[in-house]
Structure formats: C-alpha cells, structure tokens
C-alpha cells in the first residue's frame, strides 16, 4: 500500500517535470556533469594507478631489490682520471651475508647485467646479458616456452649455454629452431638451451626502441658463474676515444622473504648490514611493498582531490535544483492550495516536491552514470590509456546525486508545505 502510494507520487512528479521538459533537462545538467565527471575521473585515475601498481607488483611484494648505483662523486672524477677503474656496487659477499644473517629470507638472487652484442651468422643484436641463478624465472615471472632454463649443473660447471627471450630469438633465428644453435657473445660461443617469455607483458612501452634494434626485452640469460668467467668483472666502455672501466661484481640482488610481513623488519637490518661493507652509497634498496603503499597513498590523495571537485560540482548541481524548485513552488502555489483544500496534509506536499527533486537528481544521476561509463571507454580508445570504472564509484556518484536531491529538495518542499491554504488559493 505504501509502495503503491509512492509509485503514484513518483508518477505524478515525473508528469509535473515533463510539463517543462526544457527546464527539467537544464536543471538536471548540473547533476549529469557532476556524476559523469566523478565516474570518468575516478576511472582514469584508477586506470593510471592500476598500471603503476601492476608494475610495482611485478617486482614482488615480498621482495627487496638492491641495485648497484654509481656513486655520484666518483662520476666527476672518472672524467678527470681516464684510466681509473671505477670499482663500486654490490658484491658476492653482500649476497652471502644477507643469506646468512637476515631472518626469514627465502631466496637470494644475484644478477650481473652486461651490455654485449650477440651474433648468429651475419645477424647481430645489442643485448643485455644477464648472469643469474636458475631460480630467476620463478622470482620474476618468466615462462619457459621452449627448451629449458639454466640449471645448477650449468652454474657449477660454468657451462657456455644461454637462454634467449622470445622476441630476441625471433629476430636472431627467423627460420631455424634456436634451441641447440650456437650464438657468439664477445669472444665465446654459447649454446642456446631455451626460450623464455615474460608472463606479464607490459604493453605500455612504445615501439620506439624497436627501430633502434634494441628493445629492453632483448635479454640473454647465462649462468652467473659463466658470466663471471667469460666476461670478467671489469666492464670497459669505450666512447669517443676515451676509455672508461667499471668493476662491478653484482648489479642486482633480489631478496625474497617468506612473507610480506617479514619485509618490513628486514629492511633496516639489510641497510645496516650493507652500510658495514660499503663506505659510499653505491647501492640502492628498493622495497616494492613500500612503493606500493606510496602509490596507494598517492591514489588516496588523488581520490580526495577528485572527490572534492566532484562534490563541488554536485553541490552546484544541487543548488541549481533548489533554485528551480523554489521557482516552481512559487509558480505552483495555486496547485498547492488546491491540494491542501482537497485533503493533502503538509507531509503530502513535502513528499510531492521532494519526490520531484529526487526524480530530477536521480534522473540526472542515471544519465551521468551512462556518460561516466562511456567517456572512459572513449578516452582509453583515443588516448591509449587504461581506465577502470569501479562499481563503487558508480554507486557513490549515484548515491550522492540522490542525497543531493533530498538535501536541496527539503527547503523548497517545506516552503511549499508551509504555505497557508487560503493564501495559496488566492495566489494568481
């Protein structure tokens, strides 16, 4: 019975609003823009932060990554002293100490990264040679698509074998099966034993690198022991006649912990440990979980800013509705008087006008939701940006638009109800 009454009042409200289609439409615009911008902006923000978070997650939330960095003061010196061998960065000893002394360590993965050229027949590509342990695919999300990855036997016997990334293999071996072929790097030949592919391929990077012949995923994986044996520890860069040498034992150590919680307590311990062995800051500690938290924090602030802008536009929309409803109340004073004379109670009048404002704002909200869902789709097509419309943003935007209708409808509605029936009937 109550529901039926409400339905009738809503029908009546829609009827009154349709009497002035143009006016009702314009009144709804404020809410339409408000709701649409909330959803669209949140969707674009959500998409951007999703990509950032995915990138961080790929580093592993229970990992700590320690990278060698060239100490800044040495840099300027190296140009003065030409034959100076720049000795910095992480060492095998660092890796061993971490494994031995830090609690809850699951795996320690050392890496050497060497810039080299790989040759097969007449084809040549600049690549990154990554000397690492067999556990590598497990920790970084590599998938072996053909053959096998490195083994501990390879590591122990310093085998001249290598594993190629799929894209590199395609370029290097357009016709033949790469496995069992031998490629040359530096002075040595390496037998290809497998092909790998990243499981979470990022499409974000533009194709620009391709034309230069060196994309970032042109990688060659070799046993760490082989890398040390074949390429040595001193890396020589020749450029413009000058000569620059760097001695770096390890470029990166990835430490995986047994749990995400363990990372937190281990970070200061690792920093203390490394400070003991390194006089200069020739390394950096990257904590993905902290980056993730920072990204989430940034997103929260972003959402608050967006939310405030959206709230303002919805309030402006609400004021628009209130303004029109006040005008409507004046215009329909006579109708209010008639209804009161014929038995309408004050709350009936309040309900009637409140329903009209809520219908306006909910109607605007619905249209706004449609635009808010469609616009991100268009944006992601045109601008090649990821957008995510979260159900919660739709619910919030829609809910707020309804609330705006109620809040800004109450005053005009009570104005209408408080009219004196006789005065209202006399109104011209």
């Amino acid at each position: 019975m109550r529901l039926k009454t409400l339905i009738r009042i809503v029908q009546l409200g829609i009827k009154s609003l349709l009497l002035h289609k143009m006016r009702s439409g314009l009144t709804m615009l404020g809410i339409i823009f408000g709701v649409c911008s909330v959803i669209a902006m949140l969707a674009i923000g959500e998409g951007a932060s999703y990509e950032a978070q995915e990138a961080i997650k790929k580093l592993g939330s229970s990992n700590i990554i320690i990278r060698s960095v060239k100490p800044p003061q040495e840099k300027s010196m190296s140009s003065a002293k030409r034959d100076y061998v720049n000795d910095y960065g992480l060492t095998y000893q660092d890796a061993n100490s971490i494994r031995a002394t830090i609690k809850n360590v699951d795996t320690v993965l050392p890496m050497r990264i060497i810039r080299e050229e790989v040759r097969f027949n007449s084809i040549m590509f600049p690549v990154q040679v990554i000397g690492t342990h067999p556990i590598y695919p497990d920790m970084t999300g590599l998938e072996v698509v053909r053959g096998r990855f490195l083994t501990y036997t390879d590591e122990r016997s310093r085998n001249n074998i290598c594993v190629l990334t799929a894209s590199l293999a395609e370029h290097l071996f357009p016709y033949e099966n790469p496995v069992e072929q031998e490629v040359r790097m530096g002075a040595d030949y390496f037998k290809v034993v497998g092909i790998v592919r990243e499981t979470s391929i990022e499409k974000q990077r533009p194709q620009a690198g391709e034309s230069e012949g060196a994309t970032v995923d042109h990688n060659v994986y070799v046993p760490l022991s082989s890398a040390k044996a074949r390429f040595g520890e001193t890396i020589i860069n020749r450029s413009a006649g000058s000569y620059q040498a760097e001695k770096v034992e390890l470029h990166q150590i990835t430490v995986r912990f047994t749990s995400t919680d363990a990372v937190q307590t281990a970070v200061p311990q690792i920093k203390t440990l490394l400070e003991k062995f390194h006089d200069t800051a020739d390394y950096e500690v990257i904590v993905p979980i902290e980056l993730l938290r920072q990204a989430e924090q940034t997103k929260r602030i972003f959402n608050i800013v967006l939310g405030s802008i959206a709230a303002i536009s919805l309030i402006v929309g609400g004021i628009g509705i209130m303004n029109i409803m006040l005008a409507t109340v004046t215009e329909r004073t006579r109708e209010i008087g008639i209804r009161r004379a014929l038995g309408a109670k004050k709350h009936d009048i309040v309900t009637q006008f409140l329903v009209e404002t809520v219908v306006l704002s909910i109607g605007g909200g619905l249209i706004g939701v449609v635009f808010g869902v469609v616009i991100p789709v268009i944006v992601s097509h045109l601008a090649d940006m990821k957008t995510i419309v979260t159900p919660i943003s739709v619910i919030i935007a829609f809910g707020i638009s309804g609330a705006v209708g109620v809040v800004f409808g109450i005053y005009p509605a009570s104005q209408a109800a408080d009219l004196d029936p006789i005065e209202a009937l006399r109104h011209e």
Partner: protein
Amino acid sequence: MANREIIRIEGLEKVYDMGEVRVKALHGVDLTIEEGSYVAIMGASGSGKSTLLNILGCLDRPTAGKYYLGGEDVASMDDDQLSAFRGRTLGFVFQSYNLIQQLSVIENIFVPLFYQGLDLSDREKHCEDLADLVGLGDRTDHRPKQLSGGQQQRVAIARSLVNDPLLILADEPTGNLDSKTGLEILDLFDRLNQQGKTMILVTHGDEVAERAQRVVHMKDGVIDREDVKRAPVKVDNSKKLELTG
C-alpha cells in the same frame, strides 16, 4: 421529522492581525444549518462572506467562537486532522475552478480520493460516473486547458462530489461564467440539492439567491437578516446520486 443539524457556529469571530492594523472581518456570527439545506450567503463586498465560508470549509480558523461540523469540534483539530477532515467530509467549488493543470479531467476528479490513500484504478468507474453526471463523460482524458470555463466548473463540481461529502461549499461559482453557462451550473446545483446534498453558496447574483432555500444576508461581519423560503429537502441517505433527466 426534521433533518439532522450538520453545522452549528456560535459567536464566531475572525480578526486579521496585520501588525498595526487589525481588521475585524467577522464579529459574532451564529448559524445552524440542517442537512439538505441550500443556503445562499449574500452581502456587500467586504462584508465577510468569503471569510465565513473559509472557516466553514475548515481552511481557516476562527479567532473566537465555536464551530461544530457533523458533530465534530473543528477548533480542537490539528492541521493534519483538518486536512483529512476536509478531504473526507467537504466538497469545494471555487470561482476560478481551481483544477490542476497537469492532470486530466478524470485525474482531477480523483484528487480528493488520492489523499485518502485510494487508487485511481480502483475508483475509475466512480470518477467516470461523476464525469458523466456533469455531462463530460466523453472528455475524461482532456486537460483543463482544453475545456471551456463552464466545462472546467463542471469538472470542479464532479470533483467536489467524489468523496460523497457532507457539505458542498461554493464561493461565487458562477462569477467567472457568462449568464447562460452560469444558469447551467446552477441547474446542476439545484439537482444536487434535490438529491439531498447540502449546499452553501456565496453569491452576488439574485438569480442564484432565488433558487436557494434559505438566504443569509451579511453586513460588516455579522448576519444582517435571513430569508427562509422553504424547508430543506428530505434527505434519504440510502439513495444514490442521479442527475440525469
């Protein structure tokens, strides 16, 4: 056996307090009206006719005095009770018709029942019968704008009957109509009264007063004199309203 008394007012006063000026629109009106009466209230402009009718119609409250309608003490009712009471027991016909523009004829007739929580779908037949009764059975889905003044007033009369009221109140119902159309409306009122409806009309026209069973003359907020021409019609509440012929 006389008809039962449905209105009793005693020492009714109404003062409009407008800050500095206090307008005494009614001072000391006593009146009793039996069921089946057809009362015309006449008097010069500003004599308090509309003020009295508004109080009788429970749209306004007296400053002093007593008012019983159908045995109920109107003064003791709060705003919501008054609204419900109007909706249940009174029918209004206004000078300027006062139909709701966005509603069709049938919906306008239905409005008083809407506020009694009823459904148009359940009472459509009843509302259509009333439209027939006032001769607008073929215009039920028209809007007020599409009707002439006389037709609009007929809709208003149908509306005033929809809740089967104890009493119909009309303030200058023919004031906006030409004399021919006015007469048609008055014929309708005559027939309603013959069917036993109690009518109270405010009017300036003598032709209206001639039809009334009783004429109340007002002057400066009091009843100056009364003419009772005949006894009220016998009321048989079991009979159904029927105006054709």
